[in-house]
């Protein structure tokens, strides 16, 4: 028999070991799945393509970082809100609105040169995302409306709004009626930090933001406020924290960051506003945030891991004709094992003989 006994103190060893254990279990399960479905293909070579190849080639590596950047930025915001027990599920929607708002500013100043255009677009992106998440915060604090439903449903509205914008005011006037914006001019494009690739400044911003978030959570009373509000609301009141403020902060931060990521995606790899802007980053970032245990520095690593599964997944699609769902299965298993293994941090496993 196996029994779980609560630990008196969270185990530091397990905090580090449990991700490795989860990775091993994911790899074993993935192996078993491949063995059972693959015919005439060497499982080890699929594994190689999936997990190793993206790291060996500079193009793949840069694409991995390009995908990791928006995941990092969104997941950072989400991890703060989730700590507070504020469940912003609609980062995808805030990402889209941020992308639209920022792009609109870029297009408004079309052909105007200036170093200030990108920061202004970024600001518009952040404000757009904040505004969109703010709707949920207002409804929750004023009318106790569940933020999960509001944010999730507003995501669909955002995607439709994007398509309305692209068929209306933001459509490229000389674009043969395709629902796409103009290509941004140079001043409205993010600086590239790795020559010859699509890797843009967004990655640097993401790393700086994660350091700021780490400081806020570890060293500032604000981190305590969101943590306590999430785990013990009455204790938060006892400490004098205002729970409405916590909801506002959580949604504004996560919405603003998602909006920033949306703008970065439009002004970075895409270079224009297209209907292809929403790429599920907002939803995948939820997995990223939980894989990181809602830790800002952990987000750096977990976003790389998930980005790896994206790039590797695309590669096996091309090389072996495997379905796209491989990526999702992999991400799903990873999250499942991570959450399962984390129980070892709070509990120890004791084996004992039954009588």
């Amino acid at each position, binding site marked *: 028999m196996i029994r779980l006994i*609560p*630990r*008196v*103190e*969270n185990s530091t060893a397990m905090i580090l070991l449990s991700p490795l254990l989860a990775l091993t279990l994911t790899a074993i399960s993935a192996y078993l799945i491949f063995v059972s479905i693959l015919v005439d293909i060497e499982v080890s070579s699929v594994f190689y393509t999936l997990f190793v190849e993206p790291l060996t080639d500079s193009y793949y590596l840069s694409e991995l970082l390009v995908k990791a950047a928006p995941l990092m930025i969104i997941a950072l915001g989400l991890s703060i809100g989730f700590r507070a027990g504020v469940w912003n599920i609609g980062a995808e929607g805030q990402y889209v609105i941020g992308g639209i708002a920022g792009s609109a500013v870029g297009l408004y100043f079309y052909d105007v040169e200036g170093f200030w255009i990108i920061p202004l677009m970024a600001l518009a992106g952040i404000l757009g995302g904040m505004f969109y998440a703010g709707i949920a915060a207002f409804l929750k604090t004023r009318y106790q409306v569940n933020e999960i439903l509001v944010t999730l449903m507003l995501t669909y509205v955002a995607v439709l709004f994007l398509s309305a914008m692209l068929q209306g005011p933001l459509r490229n006037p000389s674009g043969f009626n395709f629902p796409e914006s103009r290509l941004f001019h140079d001043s409205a494009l993010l600086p590239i930090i790795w020559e010859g690739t699509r890797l843009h400044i967004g990655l640097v911003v993401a790393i700086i933001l994660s350091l700021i978030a780490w400081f806020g959570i570890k*060293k*500032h*009373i*604000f981190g*305590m406020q969101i*943590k*306590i509000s999430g*785990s*013990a609301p*009455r*204790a938060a*009141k*006892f*400490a*004098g*924290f*205002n729970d409405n403020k916590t909801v506002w902060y959580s949604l504004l931060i996560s919405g603003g960051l998602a909006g920033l990521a949306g703008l970065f995606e439009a002004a970075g790899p895409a270079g224009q506003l297209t209907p292809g802007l929403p790429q599920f980053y907002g939803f995948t970032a939820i997995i990223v945030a939980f894989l990181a245990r809602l830790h800002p520095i952990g987000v750096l690593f977990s976003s790389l891991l998930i980005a790896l599964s994206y790039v590797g997944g695309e590669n096996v699609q091309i090389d072996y004709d495997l379905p796209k769902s491989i990526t999702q299965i992999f991400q799903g298993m990873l999250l499942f094992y991570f959450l399962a293994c984390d129980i070892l941090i709070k509990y120890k496993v004791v084996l004992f003989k039954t009588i």
Partner: protein
Amino acid sequence: MNYQLQINNITKSYGDLKANDDVSLNIKPSSIHALLGENGAGKSTLVKVIYGSLLPDRGEMKWLGKSYSPKNPFDAREQGIAMVFQHFSLFESLTVEENIVLGLDGVRLDENFTEKIIKYSKQYGLDINPHQVVGDLSVGARQRVEIIRCLMQNPKLLIMDEPTSVLTPQEVSDLFITLRKLADDGCSILYISHKLEEVRQICSEATILRGGKLVENCIPQEHTQQELAEMMIGKKLIQLARSNINSGEDIFSINNLSRKSDDMFGVDLKSISLSVMKGSIVGIAGVAGNGQDELMELLIGEITSPPGTLSFKGNDIGNLNSHQRRELSMFFIPEERLGHGAVPDMGLNENMLLSRPQKSEMTSYGVIDWQNVETLTQKVISDFDVQTFSTKMLAKSLSGGNLQKFMVGRELIQNPELLIVAQPTWGVDAGSANNIHQALIALADQGSAILIISQDLDEILSLCEQIHVLSEGSLSTAVDMTNKGLEKISQLMVGSED
């Protein structure tokens, strides 16, 4: 001698912990037998063994001369052993008779049954109306329902777990009359308690447990309360005394504070007024559920109060949150430890930050100085003898008594000018309770004011110079203790005024 119940050398372990270690006791027919011990002494384990909800590892029992080993509580009831639990198991929306019939097997609710309830209630002085809905009853009345339900099974042994912890003094003495009658009629009673004065009043034998072991079987009247307490906790108690009552001007006052409860089962507070002087300890007595929680929320500042209703050091504080009130040197210890006064899943060091005032050495501009937090946590742990492995130990892993000591220490280390504390020793063992009381007295001796809200009347009586009673949301004026004070308190607690 013929014993009703003989318990010989019962041992029961949970892992390494011996909850009962070779415990023996004998209950005579028609006796009221006390089972005394602190929390964790092994009382509940022993009772569960008797009541059939736990199987002992070793040892045997004899019931009415025959070998007895109940497999489950049903078995025990079948053989004539009944139990009244500390936490009642009644459906609030049903009537008294419906509740009683639900707890019995093979009976129908008809006129005969109702008459039988009335018969028992008259015979044993258990005043109850069978048609009343339980939700409307006081705690004491609910306990009477539970007792009648047990009596309907014609028990030969009635186990009562901490029966007086929630009763008013008047209800306690009514209960004792009932218990004596029951014993005279041949039903022996196993009376579990840690209230020593009561045990000396009503019990003819006492068995004292400590750390799972039997300390002594004795006759309680042959020992003083102090001796019994020391046997129970295994060390000397320190006598409580104020060394320096030097009360000055009013520091805190509540003026006509009312509040409509937002909870369906909450209590409305009706124009409460009270003032506390520097250096004095003021107590609010009363049975739980009479508005204590609602009042505490207002005092802490979790809910704001109208202007002019709360004043501290001349400031109108009704609109301030707890954080801002602490800044004025007003500190609080709520009743609920886990989830209110402390966050269960956070370490003690993190919990330290909960009650920091705005200007504190623990933070500057919101940035936490973990070094200072660590030092302060260490100081609380050592000054208040909190048993813990480290400052990072999770609050929920501490025993109730230890966590309470931590919480008291956390506030006292801030040197509050006013401390408001609810149920300071609720669920705390006698040794720790003694330490906490001492610390409160020392604080008042220094010139600070203390307001205690407690349903433990003994605690209020031994600590407070000024006593008010909270009943159904109304607060009495200070009770004049020089003339039949206890009687007045008792009347106020049940809500009858003269």
